[in-house]
């Protein structure tokens, strides 16, 4: 046993090193992809060669060519231009959802975790109930109540995503509460609110950021689904979800390209956000261990 121990330790150290190296390129790749999409969204007018809403009925469902990098759709719109412009609505929606639900979740989680007691029990039960409703269902409900478009689904999903952040923050705050450094702040005379907001929150914020990153991918998927169902972004505005919906007819005609392009964009973005968020969370957890 004693003779074996050193080898085991060396083995683990080497494994950790390989992992860290393996993790590095995948983080950079994910971050790179996301930066690329973000830049495309910001500089869409400079990048897109055509007006994304300009139709050309003499040139429908064209294959990739020098004129149209990714071909055209069923009404002759340039797929590449629609993809680039689509990045705007496809990324802004999830950004709004993640921002709103993170602010709300941090607030709720901090209050529940820090105050504890009956207030925490009540908040936790409410969060449990909210977990029972899928975000997509709430978004569809909101659309039937308030009409189609981006606003209703974004508001509904912001609320539906709040428990994911709130529960994590609550757990982290409860764990922090018993930390000696937090006790030290209390003994030094800092007010409970000050300790919670200005001392504890900054210490747990990297993990919240990691969670928010993962959520971004899910929000993008859900909003794309809403647009695919025709309940989110309305035509002729380009959006990856509605692009997939628009090309259903083309797929039946044996021209899958217009559906494949936005699908790949959605899949790649969601995976990149997931990888980035999970890896960041892992690293922070390993560092803090």
């Amino acid at each position: 046993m004693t003779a074996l121990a050193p080898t085991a330790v060396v083995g683990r150290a080497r494994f950790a090193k390989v992992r860290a190296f393996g993790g590095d390129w995948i983080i950079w790749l994910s971050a790179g992809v996301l930066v690329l999409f973000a830049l495309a969204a910001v500089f869409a007018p400079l990048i897109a060669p055509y007006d994304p809403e300009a139709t050309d009925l003499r040139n429908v469902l064209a294959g990739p060519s020098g004129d149209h990098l990714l071909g055209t759709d069923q009404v002759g719109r340039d797929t590449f231009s629609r993809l680039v412009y689509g990045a705007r609505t496809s990324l802004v929606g999830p950004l709004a959802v993640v921002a709103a639900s993170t602010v709300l979740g941090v607030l709720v989680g901090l209050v529940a975790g820090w105050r504890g007691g009956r207030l925490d029990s009540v908040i936790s039960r409410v969060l449990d109930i909210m977990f029972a409703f899928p975000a997509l269902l709430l978004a569809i409900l909101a659309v039937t109540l308030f009409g189609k478009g981006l606003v209703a689904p974004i508001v509904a999903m912001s609320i539906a995503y709040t428990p994911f952040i709130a529960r994590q923050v609550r757990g982290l705050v409860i764990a922090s509460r018993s930390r000696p450094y937090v006790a030290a702040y209390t003994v030094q005379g800092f007010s409970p609110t000050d300790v919670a907001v200005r001392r504890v929150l900054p210490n747990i914020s990297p993990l919240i950021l990691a969670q928010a990153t993962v959520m971004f991918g899910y929000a993008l998927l859900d909003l794309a689904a809403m647009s695919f169902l025709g309940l989110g972004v309305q035509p002729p505005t380009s959006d990856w979800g509605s692009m997939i919906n628009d090309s259903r007819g083309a797929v039946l005609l044996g021209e899958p390209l217009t559906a494949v392009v936005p699908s790949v964009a959605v899949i790649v973005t969601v995976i990149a956000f997931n990888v980035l968020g999970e890896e960041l969370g892992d690293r922070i957890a390993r560092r803090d261990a």
Partner: protein
Amino acid sequence: MTALLEVEDLCKTYRAHGHEVAAASAVSFRLEEGGSLGIVGESGSGKTTTARMVVGLERPDSGRIVFRGQELSSRPRGRSERLERARAIQIVFQDPYLSLDPRVAVGAAVEQVVKLHTKLAGADRRRRVLDLLGQVGLGEREAGTLPRRLSGGQRQRVAIARALAVGPAVLVLDEAVSALDVSVQAQVLNLLTDIRELTGVGLLFISHDLAVVRYVCDEALVMRSGEVVERGSTAQLLSAPQHAYTRVLLDAIPRPA
């Protein structure tokens, strides 16, 4: 004459797995102005619970904590009461790796306490911070570093400087040197003795190690299972222990052959 700190009949019971465990039962002691008192006992003897009640981190089931003739409430209300309580009693915790905020550099950690408790600003405040760090043997170089770059001994010095920044009348040291190497322990103990002479702060020194307590304190209590089983001068406890448990603790001290 009123004592600096008077603790009367502190009781605390925890409920665990349906059992009631008396962490402290009727703990009483007096700490005179500028004095030093040791609390000795094994883990589970109730000494840390007592310390946490004294600094207000734990609410006693019954009993009183009287500071210079005034009873301290376990839940201070409002800013002034909170700061007043902080200036009465400060604490240095056992584990210097967990008791410092990992995000805050050493100088800033001391400075935020100075900022909270004094009106000093700008250059005056920075000078005060460096004075405090100087008192514990740390300099400008350490002021800019994060706790994780410091050794255990250095971190514990930071924790002491941070506690002193409040300007407390009583300093509680809860196993404050137990996590340190023996040579570093001696340095920190010397430092505490110096600080006590310099500032007149009263020390409540909690340890499982009677030899360490003797180094700092003139008087001590011995605790076991939440009760004070013996009390007296440290010299007397060492030379003529009355209680069987004190003798057991004494036998745990390594002696030169």
